[in-house]
């Protein structure tokens, strides 16, 4: 099962995602946390710690995987009955797309590279979902203002948009979290075995 959770920064989407994971974990599934942010900077380290403490306090046995890039490397480590929470897609895309920026390799300017990044991530998501019981993906709303002039940001938005569209199409459940409140955008009817968009 694929669950997609999106929202603005500090909207409470990660906490909600953890609740969803625990809900499925209660059925006896093991909980895995795939963290995608690069652990540089004090601000980030603080947030990582806060989220990690929350997970420890939750009383459930989370296993954390630090995977800023190449999530397909994890495809073989999970079992059918396990829950994976990937937090978050935004960091993963940014790490993949801007890989090599320190050496001034502007790979993202090539369309072939961008397509590769898109395909790599989408394939890994589909593969991970097949491997485990429940895959929960958390992502950010980054499409709220004017279109950016700089090419890096533009292509980043483009890939994020395409990934969101593809994931929403594949997902069984889609939530948009606003100010801590989850809004169901797409739901799964187990009896009818089909997904339907929800009127908002």
């Amino acid at each position: 099962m694929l669950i997609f959770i999106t929202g603005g920064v500090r909207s409470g989407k990660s906490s909600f995602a953890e609740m969803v994971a625990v809900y499925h974990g209660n059925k006896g599934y093991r909980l895995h946390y795939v963290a995608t942010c690069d652990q540089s900077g004090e601000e980030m380290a603080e947030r990582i710690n806060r989220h990690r403490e929350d997970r420890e306090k939750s009383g459930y046995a989370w296993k954390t995987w630090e995977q800023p890039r190449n999530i397909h490397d994890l495809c073989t480590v999970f079992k059918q009955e396990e829950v994976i929470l990937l937090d978050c897609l935004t960091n993963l895309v940014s790490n993949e797309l801007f890989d090599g920026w320190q050496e001034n390799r502007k790979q993202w300017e090539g369309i072939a590279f961008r397509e590769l990044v898109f395909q790599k991530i989408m394939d890994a998501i589909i593969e991970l979902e097949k491997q485990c019981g429940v895959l929960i993906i958390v992502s950010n709303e980054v499409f709220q203002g004017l279109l950016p002039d700089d090419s890096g940001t533009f292509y980043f938005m483009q890939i994020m948009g395409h990934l969101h569209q593809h994931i929403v199409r594949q997902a069984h459940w889609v939530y948009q979290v606003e100010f801590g409140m989850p809004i169901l955008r797409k739901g799964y009817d187990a009896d009818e075995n089909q997904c339907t968009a929800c009127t908002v």
Partner: protein
Amino acid sequence: MHFVTGGAFHGKAKWVMETYSASRKMEGWFNLYDAVCPEADEFKTSLVVLEGMEQLVKKVVQANKKGTREVLKKKLHAWLEWESALPGRRLVLVGTDIGKGIVPMEEENRRWRDVSGWFFQDCAMAAEKVHVVWYGLEQTIK
């Protein structure tokens, strides 16, 4: 007239293509990112799709210091007249919502954003149907 909006890269054009069995390559689909916005007397097909309304707004804002909303309204009315002149004609306007970010630094970008918001209100007011597309899922708001 059918007005379709939503954030950038949300699959708006794709949704229109699926809904109307249309394609970007067909005659009657105008992409305002690279083409000049056509006048109503240039519409030759029964289905006309104008994609990138915010790009039209940008050009009008760049060309006019004042009265931009009226210039755009006039265009809109000419298109609507074309649509109602014969039964079976259908006009679809597609525009990216650029109004939900922080206030832009540059005066021109602020005007672009403001006028887009006003013009989109005018489009929604005149439309029979309005849909917001969110990552491919549609929400009917009119």
